[in-house]
């Protein structure tokens, strides 16, 4: 084959694809060429010179154009007079590389002598010590002494705060620029750079605040020396003393794989664990630094029962008995319809499964829901039918794929997903279309940006469907011919009409429809800001079905769900109208969270697990305080727990095992990191099972994987999700003994988790089309729309326990565009009052250079829940705005 090249490395023959770099070709035969600046995820630069090797190419006879042969009939190899960098040199046919020759070893020795001229050699007090490529390669390759003048060392400050989270020791730096390149190429936050030259060169950040990026922790991982360390782990422990436990992040729906480094029952640090299908080797700063809730002194340690206005500690047995008695008596007097449950979407699948089983089998009601807080009203059933196909890998999709993002600020909502989508476009040329009501960071990497008016996303989606049909690009579906009838009910969503409603031009709508339909692969991501209108989901489903972008890898829909196990909560049937596995309930089901918490709700008693609805609205708080009996199981004494009759301490994610299902439907297991739980905390599934047992149920669950074993039996979607399948390590081709060169801890085990297949992947089932008309646009020309998006550093209860990120938490403030600020005559920092339906909120203004006119942004879930007071459970609403004049 022409695109395969054969070469020899230290006389071992190896065949690799054209364009492969020597350093990668060497890995293939298990030969390690030492590197510092080279990193598999970054563009090679050849800066550190550590990978110098001798390279020779065959001598070509100019007359015959054939290699000249020696007396033995072998091609004569002419070696380059100087060594070359293996990390920037691609292989060529017949090339000969000497990695371990005397000259190459001498070069390595000399390069290390240079790199160490100013290095402090303070490994005994350096956080990187023990997992440091520089330390490793120095012991292996360097001379024992240096010829440089000690007096000539460059001195820099030893603990310079490069940002709030990262500390720079410039004396240790070898100017490999991995951190700078990571920020430029991967994070797309170009906030790091080298200033000055030669021996004065040093790393700087001039963004405000400094090192302004959600991904700063990764630079400390990939730093091949101890120059960048995190404020969290500085002098925390020696890396070899840590017990490393594989776990899954519980802060958002991406499900990043990570390693808890624990010692003496404390989490010392969090590192990424490689999973090329989820987070590659990255973690966002929230996941990395937001682990402190596990060890917080604020945690609940014992069951509490109400005694008047106070809580008194009690034993588990007493508490469970009391709950069982109360539940039984209320069921007897008021009936099961007066009982309900709310479970938060960051509980594990096992907890959630038992939660719904408890309500459906023991209490005998369907009054249960998970849709409160960030998950409020967001119901995604598209995953069941046309979710992305099994085997989808956003880390590989490129030119052949169109990606349509609708209403999601990925950098804030699902940071690692942002990295992968941005790279698909920026690095590999995917056709990325970013549709949203306001500018987001992803716009910079998008090929096309569509700016629709808030609330009109469903019209845009139906407009795309119509444009695809009109252009004759609609395809047969999985072997089922597409009938005219399928579109019989589809009203006129012509590009002209949709353009008038959305504010996007006819040409853009038609071009987008064509680009998406004609790409071999198509992926749609939609988020909270697209709105809760079920019409949007129906339209997006139809779009992927008629373009053939469903039922196969790298095709389908991803809902950017907010919480770690939002997907699992829907899978496990924590919904009033669905059983586990998306089975509809014939009778119609029970009450939703909104109905249960509304004024005049018929509910008399509730069990609330891992959710805090009381902070969301006064109505909810009133309903909860008027209940006859409220049981709350949580990590903290939340506002809801303060209203409870009994509060039960739950184990945190690090203290127990279980599984989460991520937003690509990947089920992943996490293990016990801290075997000794805080106080007498129990895992949520055990609490629920114990209540059930006290109520006379014959529930013998003894472990989370035992619960999962039952799920595999009863929920067909989960039939392969046994723990033993989920924790089976995966062998990666690039796996070497030296993880540390890529910035991972030694003991990171690679597992990929398992995805459940969608209905579209079942070749015998036809996914039905459905048409749901979009909601009427109330006011087509609103004066000002207030948007309440999710931000990474919000006021979530779990994040609040991490002192290290405290400065990053977003303070309540509203972003206004320059134009709107000018109209109101207000400057940055001044106060405005926004009002809607008689509710008024006063906040300072921050004028946003890039925001579009007519849109104001006040993030949700901040202190005081100001945005929620105005927009309720929705995401955006028209508001009145007045400057506050003193």
């Amino acid at each position, binding site marked *: 084959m022409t695109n395969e090249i054969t070469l020899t490395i230290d006389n071992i023959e190896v065949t690799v694809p054209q364009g492969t770099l020597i350093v990668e070709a060497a890995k293939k035969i298990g030969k390690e060429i030492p590197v510092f600046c080279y990193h598999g995820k970054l563009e090679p630069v050849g800066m550190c010179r550590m990978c110098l090797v001798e390279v020779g190419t065959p001598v070509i006879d100019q007359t015959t154009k054939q290699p000249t042969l020696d007396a033995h009939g072998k091609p004569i190899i002419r070696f380059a007079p100087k060594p070359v960098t293996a990390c920037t040199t691609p292989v060529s046919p017949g090339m000969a590389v000497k990695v371990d020759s005397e000259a190459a070893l001498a070069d390595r020795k000399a390069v290390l002598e240079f790199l160490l001229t100013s290095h402090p050699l303070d490994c005994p007090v350096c956080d990187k010590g023990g997992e440091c490529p520089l330390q490793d390669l120095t012991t292996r390759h360097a001379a024992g002494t240096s010829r440089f003048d000690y007096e000539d060392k460059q001195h820099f400050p030893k603990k310079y705060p490069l940002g709030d989270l990262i500390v720079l020791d410039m004396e240790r730096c070898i100017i490999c620029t991995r951190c700078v390149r990571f920020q430029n190429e991967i994070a797309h936050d170009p*906030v790091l*750079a080298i*200033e000055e030259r030669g021996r004065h060169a040093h790393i700087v950040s*001039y*963004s*405000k605040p400094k090192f302004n990026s959600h991904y700063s922790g990764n630079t400390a991982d990939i730093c091949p020396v101890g120059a960048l360390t995190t404020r969290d782990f500085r002098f925390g422990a020696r890396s070899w003393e840590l017990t490393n436990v594989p776990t899954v992040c519980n802060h958002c729906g991406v499900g990043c794989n990570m390693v808890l480094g624990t010692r003496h029952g404390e989490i010392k640090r969090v590192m990424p664990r490689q999973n090329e299908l989820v987070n590659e080797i990255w973690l966002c700063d929230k996941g990395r630094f937001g682990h402190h809730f596990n060890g917080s002194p604020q945690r609940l340690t014992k069951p509490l029962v109400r005694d008047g206005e106070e809580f008194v500690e009690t034993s588990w047995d007493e508490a469970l008995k009391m709950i069982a008695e109360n539940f039984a008596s209320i069921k007897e007097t008021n009936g099961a319809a007066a009982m309900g449950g709310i479970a938060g979407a960051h509980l594990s699948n096992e907890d959630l499964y038992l939660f719904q089983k408890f309500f459906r089998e023991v209490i005998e009601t369907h009054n249960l829901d998970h849709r409160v807080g960030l998950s409020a009203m967001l119901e995604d059933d598209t995953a069941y039918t046309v979710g992305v196909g099994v085997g989808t890998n956003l880390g590989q999709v490129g030119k052949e794929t169109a990606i349509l993002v609708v209403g999601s600020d990925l950098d804030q909502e699902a940071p690692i997903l942002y990295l992968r989508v941005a790279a698909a476009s920026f690095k590999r040329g995917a056709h990325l279309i970013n549709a949203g009501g306001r500018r987001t960071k992803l716009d910079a990497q998008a090929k096309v940006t569509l700016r629709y008016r808030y609330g009109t996303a469903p019209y845009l989606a139906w407009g795309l469907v119509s444009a695809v049909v009109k252009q004759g690009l609609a395809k047969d579906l999985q072997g089922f011919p597409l009938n005219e009838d399928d579109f019989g009910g589809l009203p006129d969503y012509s590009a002209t009409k949709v353009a008038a409603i959305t504010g996007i031009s006819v040409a853009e709508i038609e071009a987008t429809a064509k680009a998406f339909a004609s790409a071999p692969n198509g992926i749609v991501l939609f988020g909270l800001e697209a709105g809760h209108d079920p019409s949007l989901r129906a339209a997006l489903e139809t779009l992927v079905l008629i373009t053939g972008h469903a039922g196969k890898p790298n095709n389908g829909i991803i809902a950017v769900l907010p919480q770690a196990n939002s997907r699992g909560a829907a899978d496990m049937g924590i919904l009033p109208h669905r059983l586990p596995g998306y089975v509809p309930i014939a009778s119609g089901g029970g009450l939703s969270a909104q109905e249960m918490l509304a004024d005049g709700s018929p509910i008399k008693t509730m069990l609330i697990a891992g959710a805090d609805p009381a902070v969301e609205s006064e109505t909810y708080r009133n309903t909860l305080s008027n209940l006859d009996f409220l049981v709350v199981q949580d990590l903290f004494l939340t506002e809801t727990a303060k209203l409870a009759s009994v509060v039960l301490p739950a184990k945190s994610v690090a203290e127990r095992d279980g599984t989460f299902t991520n937003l690509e439907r990947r089920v992943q297991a996490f293990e016990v990191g801290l075997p000794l739980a805080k106080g007498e905390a129990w895992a949520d599934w055990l609490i629920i099972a114990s209540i059930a047992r006290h109520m006379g149920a014959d529930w013998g669950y003894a472990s989370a994987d035992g619960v999962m074993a039952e799920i595999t039996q009863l929920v067909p979607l989960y039939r392969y999700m046994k723990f033993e399948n989920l924790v089976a390590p995966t062998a990666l081709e690039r796996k070497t003994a030296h993880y540390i060169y890529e910035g991972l801890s030694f003991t990171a085990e690679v597992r990929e988790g398992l995805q459940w297949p969608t209905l579209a992947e079942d070749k015998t089932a036809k996914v039905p089309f459905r048409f749901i008309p979009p909601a009427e646009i109330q006011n087509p020309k609103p004066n000002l729309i207030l948007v309440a998006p999710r931000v990474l550093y919000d006021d979530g209860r779990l994040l609040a326990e991490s002192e290290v990120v405290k400065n990053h938490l977003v303070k309540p403030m509203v972003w206004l565009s320059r134009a709107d600020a000018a109209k109101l005559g207000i400057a*940055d920092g001044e106060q405005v009052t926004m009002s809607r339906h008689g509710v008024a909120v006063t906040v300072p203004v921050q004028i*946003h250079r890039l925001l579009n006119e007519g849109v104001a942004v006040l993030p949700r879930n901040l202190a005081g829940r100001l945005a929620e007071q105005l927009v309720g459970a929705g995401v955006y609403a028209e508001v009145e705005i007045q400057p506050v004049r003193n």
Partner: protein
Amino acid sequence: MTKNTRRLLVLFIKNLIFLNVDRQFAYYNIITMWTQQEQQELTEILKKYPADRKMSAVLPALYLAQREKNWLADEDIEAVAEALDISPTHVHSVIGFYTLFRKEPTGKYLVQVCTDLPCALRGAEAFYQRLCQRLGLSPQGGTTADGLFTVEEVVCIAACDKAPCAQINLEYYENLTDEQMDGVIEQLRKQG
């Protein structure tokens, strides 16, 4: 309104308003740092580059930003970054790499005298010291009280054969004697 009064005004306004947040996204350039003339020149410069490669214009844009007072304040750097759609950090890094861009207050005329070995053999070292003395500066160089001249010792300006030599802003003055140098200084003083 000259550029300096504008800068003072901007600093004044910046101190008035409350800026606790990421200025990358804030409306901090209340008054642009460019004069009308500079804005026109910048537009001309940008025409030479593709619209999505504005960062290629960073060197000419920095020369333009530095032209009036011969050094770059933070506001100038931020103005260049905004005009070229790149991060201020990136602009700082370019400035840090090239010695002709300066971030500290500098005289209108920057006099750089090479005193490295070949030049020193032709008397450049003594020439430099006498120059400092005549301008009332310490032997380490510095800026004259009137803010007109900054003198500094540098290593190699690629004119060893014509030493003693000095680079004044972008102009070269070669085979200098004290008298000739005084003439040059006098002439520049007249220009103001």
